[in-house]
């Protein structure tokens, strides 16, 4: 039986008249890599802060690693969205300070910190003051601070925000390594492709409510693909109207970048029938059933009035 690393029951949080979290029930399975997604101001960070017992719910219960959140603090690693360091502290000293707060004994701390600095390619930085580091280096130090004590549950709020592609890839790999080592990871983002790439489970929060909680496999099954992409050998846009006339096709649109027609098919029609009909109708280079992206799911559930997925923000 799968146990839950995080268990929320009917959790409410209000700030004045604003209901930031509205009766959320949530189970994060042990060992999962769960993505918290949602638009800015949806309640993601508030939910995370309640899991971390930084703030307390007005109603409902929060259980983390089988205990109340406060007593489990040493077993949780947390990278907050608003990151900070003691600017005048040296990197080694800061990381040892954080590790001590998390209950690690003083013996062997230097070696542990050095090993992590080596893993994130910051070996030269141990004696530097935090303020002397670049923004990307500071983020890596903050990442180490959240995992230095080898926590069972790791919560990362927008871990890639502000990172260049090289460092983003490095952090991505570290998250995968931690997941492979059996850690439970909750990863909050509003960049859908990152969540899709990393997570095996998605929780979508909007306006303080959970509107989706499923594994990626369940999501792909539930949000059945309805688009067939056909690339005619002729690359002729006029072919789109011929394809649009096929039975079961509701709409056909030419995509000039892919030199292909995108066919939206009716709900009760088997996409395989449409694909076979397209091949029979004209010579084609490729025919594919487009996989549902998290972006598609997000837009379908939350609505079109969403900010672009590349915008930064908090949730």
């Amino acid at each position, binding site marked *: 039986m799968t146990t839950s690393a995080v268990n929320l029951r009917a959790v409410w949080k209000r700030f004045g008249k604003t209901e930031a979290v509205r009766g959320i029930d949530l189970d994060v399975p042990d060992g999962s890599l769960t993505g918290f997604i949602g638009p800015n101001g949806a309640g993601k960070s508030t939910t995370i*802060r309640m899991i*971390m*017992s*930084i*703030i307390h719910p007005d109603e409902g219960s929060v259980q983390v690693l089988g205990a109340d959140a*406060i007593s489990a*603090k*040493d*077993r*949780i690693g*947390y990278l*907050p969205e*608003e*990151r*900070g*360091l*003691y*600017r*005048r*502290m040296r990197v080694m000293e800061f990381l040892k*300070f*954080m590790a*001590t*707060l*998390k*209950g*690690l*004994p003083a013996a*062997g701390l230097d070696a*542990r910190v050095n090993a992590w600095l080596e893993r994130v390619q910051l070996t030269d930085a141990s004696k530097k003051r935090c303020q002397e580091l670049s923004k990307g280096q500071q983020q890596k130090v*903050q990442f180490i*601070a*959240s995992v230095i*004590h*080898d926590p*069972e549950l790791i919560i990362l709020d927008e871990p890639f925000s502000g990172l260049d592609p090289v460092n983003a890839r490095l952090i991505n790999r570290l998250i995968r390594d931690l997941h492979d080592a059996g850690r439970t990871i909750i990863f909050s983002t509003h960049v859908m492709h990152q969540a899709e790439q990393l997570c095996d489970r998605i929780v979508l929060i909007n306006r303080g409510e959970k509107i989706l909680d499923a594994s990626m496999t369940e999501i792909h099954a539930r949000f059945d693909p309805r688009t067939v992409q056909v690339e005619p050998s002729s690359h002729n846009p006029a072919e789109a109207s011929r394809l649009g006339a096929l039975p079961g096709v509701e709409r056909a649109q030419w995509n000039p970048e892919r030199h292909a027609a995108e066919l939206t098919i009716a709900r009760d029609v088997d996409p395989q029938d449409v694909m076979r009909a397209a091949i029979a109708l004209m010579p084609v280079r490729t025919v594919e059933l487009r996989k549902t992206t998290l972006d598609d799911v997000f837009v379908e559930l939350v609505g079109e009035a969403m900010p672009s997925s590349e915008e930064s923000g908090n949730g």
Partner: protein
Amino acid sequence: MADRMHASPMRRIWTIAFREFRHTVITKGFIFGALVMPVVMFAAIAAIGMLIGMQMTPVAGTLVVIDESGTVAGFAAEELTPEQVAKDMQDTLKRNSALKSWPGNDVAQQATASLPSIDVKVESVQDATRVDELRAKVQDGSLLGLAIVSPELLNANPKDAEGNDLTYTLIVPTRSAPRLTGMLEKSIAKAIVKARVQRVGTDYTSLQALLTLPETSVRRMSTEGAEADENAIAKTLLPMGFMMLLWIATFTSGQYLLTTTIEEKASKVMEVLLSAVSPMELLCGKIVGYAMVSAVMLGMYGALGIAGLSAAAMGDLVSPGMLILMLVYFVMAYAFVSTMMASVGSAVNDLREAQSLVTPAMLILMLPIMLWLPISEQPNGWIATISSFIPPAIPFVMVLRVTASNEQIDTWQVVLSLVWGFAWVGAFIWGGAKIFRVGVLMQGKPPSPRELLKWIRMA
């Protein structure tokens, strides 16, 4: 999994406290401000004295006194011998009420040691028509000075026709140092008085002995009949010294606490910390850390003060009981100030915003400074009694009262102030912790006092 021990709340509090202490005390700023600066100030004061002494040029030259009687110059010559100038200076210093009780009167002897060498010849001129010639000599620097004493000034009652006091004229070169001018002025004035006394046929030394005011030995008697010496320094300066010591020790740390809390909020490190510790543990850690900073300052300056008093043979003014009470009131004062500063620091975004919230409490805390004199003079008076029950000024006023004079304050008042004061400390910590818990995660507009009360209710 890591070889993790359970981080108990005490361990977390101590880790935070030690970090705060280390990063405050072992810094160039603290070492310079709290340790080096006072040493530099004392050294500067000593150096200034030395420099003045080194700059002093020997006083040598001729002073001419135009006086028809011809008596004033002789007396002036007596007054301007090096021995007499030194003796006058010592007498003046000894008459000073504060230095009077300083053991051995070493200060007076040390002060006269800084006098320049003196070699002044005094020449008497009875012919008043030579004024212009002698003025020219002053102008070209060949004379130290020229004193013009009118014959009427030697009368028993030297007044002019309108009844105003008569004056004598002293002409000196422009470059003449004020200290030299003052010395000449005083010596000639004294010589005129001696000449007057001689004219009426009286012996000046006998008359001076008759006119010398006797020194007073005040003995203060308690209601129990015990008698003790009155000490002007103990009565006025000691309570102020103790209170200022308490003030500096608590407010320096309080200021550090305020600024570091604001910095932690501004640099966003607060949420990182709160992922590892609870707001209450963070608050306690910070308060304990800066308590150690405060204790270092109190210990350092307090030990210096007590060493100074002991060196001046006044160590008996500070009893062990007084020191213990001082320590208890220090704990109370620090608890008030630190809770206030930490909660305000958590609620605001910068120091400017903090000022508006701290000002009302600061006005109350200024009370002991403003009422220092009436409280020190009458430690059992109604002003002292009432103000010693107004939080958060309680510990500061009580330190003034406890260390004031030889007068004992009632034990029940001390006990009541401790009970009442620590009850208020409890209330401050309770409210401060609630404000801190809400404030550390708040951003944007600073709260009004009404909103702070709301935070206390909602947290």
